[in-house]
């Protein structure tokens, strides 16, 4: 599948992760727009509607990713959101969005644990766009 001319918003406060996702999504054919935190992302979203968003959970604020996902879905419910997180890894705190209740308050379509693998991310993106 080629995502030629589709736009993706990438948000992560780790410059390396951002760079990696940038390289990866470009290789799949996406146009990429990068932001290093939720406030920068909010600014970008004022004038730009992505076809996909890949966002980190913990950035400037502990739950910055949740709020950003919420804002993105407010702009348009059609924008798929992939949330990446090292939270489980670091804190042992576990969460997922498999139950309906969790899906209601975590406004992300997919939650991926960090480090995110190329094949995994590619597969999830494929699935999200197939559903369309």
């Amino acid at each position, binding site marked *: 599948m080629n995502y030629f001319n589709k736009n993706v918003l990438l948000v992560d*406060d780790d*410059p390396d992760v951002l760079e990696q996702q940038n390289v990866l999504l470009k290789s799949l054919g996406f146009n990429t727009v990068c932001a290093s935190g939720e406030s920068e992302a909010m600014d970008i979203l004022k004038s730009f509607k992505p076809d996909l968003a890949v966002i980190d959970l913990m950035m400037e604020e502990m739950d910055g990713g949740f709020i950003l996902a919420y804002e993105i879905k407010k702009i348009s419910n059609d924008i798929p959101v992939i949330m990446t997180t090292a939270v489980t890894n670091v804190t042992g705190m576990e969460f997922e969005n498999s139950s309906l209740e969790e899906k209601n308050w975590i406004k992300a379509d997919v939650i991926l644990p960090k*480090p995110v693998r190329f094949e995994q991310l590619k597969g999830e993106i494929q699935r999200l766009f197939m559903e369309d």
Partner: protein
Amino acid sequence: MDNTSQKLKVFVVDDEPGICLGVGAILRDFKVNDQTSNSQVEFEIFTFNDGESMIESLEKEVPHLLLLDCKLPGIDGMEILENYLNPENEILTIMITAYATIETAIKATKLGAYDFLAKPFTPDELRYTVRKAVTHIMLRGQAKRLEEEKKRIRFEFIRVLAHELKSPINAVDGYLDLIKNRILGDEIEAYDGLVEKSVIRIDGMRKMIGDLLDLTRIESGQKKRMIENIDIIEIAKNSIELNCLSAEKSNINIELFSPDSLFMSADSGEIQIIFNNLISNAVKYNIKNGNVFIRISEDNNLVNIEVEDTGIGLTSDELSKLFNEFSRIKNEKTRNIQGSGLGLSIVKKISGLYGGDVDCSSTSGKGSIFYVTLNKTTVEGQL
């Protein structure tokens, strides 16, 4: 002193009703000041005329303090001490003895008794013994709380450390994953940038492990300190040379203002760590074509070190967190700068060894000045 008070439960076991009555009456009106929590300790008294009823009570309620008669009609005091007191309950026992012999004393102590009260005793003797026991209980409680606090701090440190060590691994892992999947095609040169970025993260991690070792060595006192009469100007010059290469990359000018030599008794390794940390920070957090000014002077028994940069500076909020472990100021400007978050807390610890301190004044966007004072003749510093 505040008004809080706490009640300690006291069990009194004696087959003479007079003793139970008397002890109860004296302790009910007795108050002890607890120095560890600045509060007042009062007593709640439960009396028993034999061992059996006390043992039965233990199942429902555990006292802090037990006043136990040696000779009792059924199960006697020694037997209770030996068989019926769960060590986990940490009940402090004071034996009441009519015929205080050395033998009973030794035996009771071996079985875990804390103290003795020989019959007949005066109210003052009772109060004195109980006050001593209360102090013991309170100190024991305080030691326990401190131990728990220590464990909590240690866990927190390791949790943050684990996070800090994981992020470079994740970053390198991510680059390797891209390379493995030939994201940029088959030309190996296309991956140079990714490899270079991985190397930077690995270097950062190595530096952090080094800093961590420095920190723990200083804290544990394991590192043998070699206190000698050393010229710290020479060490400063060394450190400037070490940082020259990275300074040149951003065309940063480093200048030293100092006497030709300045001798103090110190461990040269420790002084080197101070200069390396301060100067490398001044270079790292600087701007292109910026300046680093190092001033070293002496003032009676003090050595003053100032490292000034023309870099990004700090806000007052950032300043307050600066010397904490793993504190890295995260903002737009520092995002691409590698650091362990340990450098300045190491500088602070070492300065402490020399009876000195470290301080910082800074203007956001303009630059910072770090001040270190060291005592010239502290030989054995304490943390």
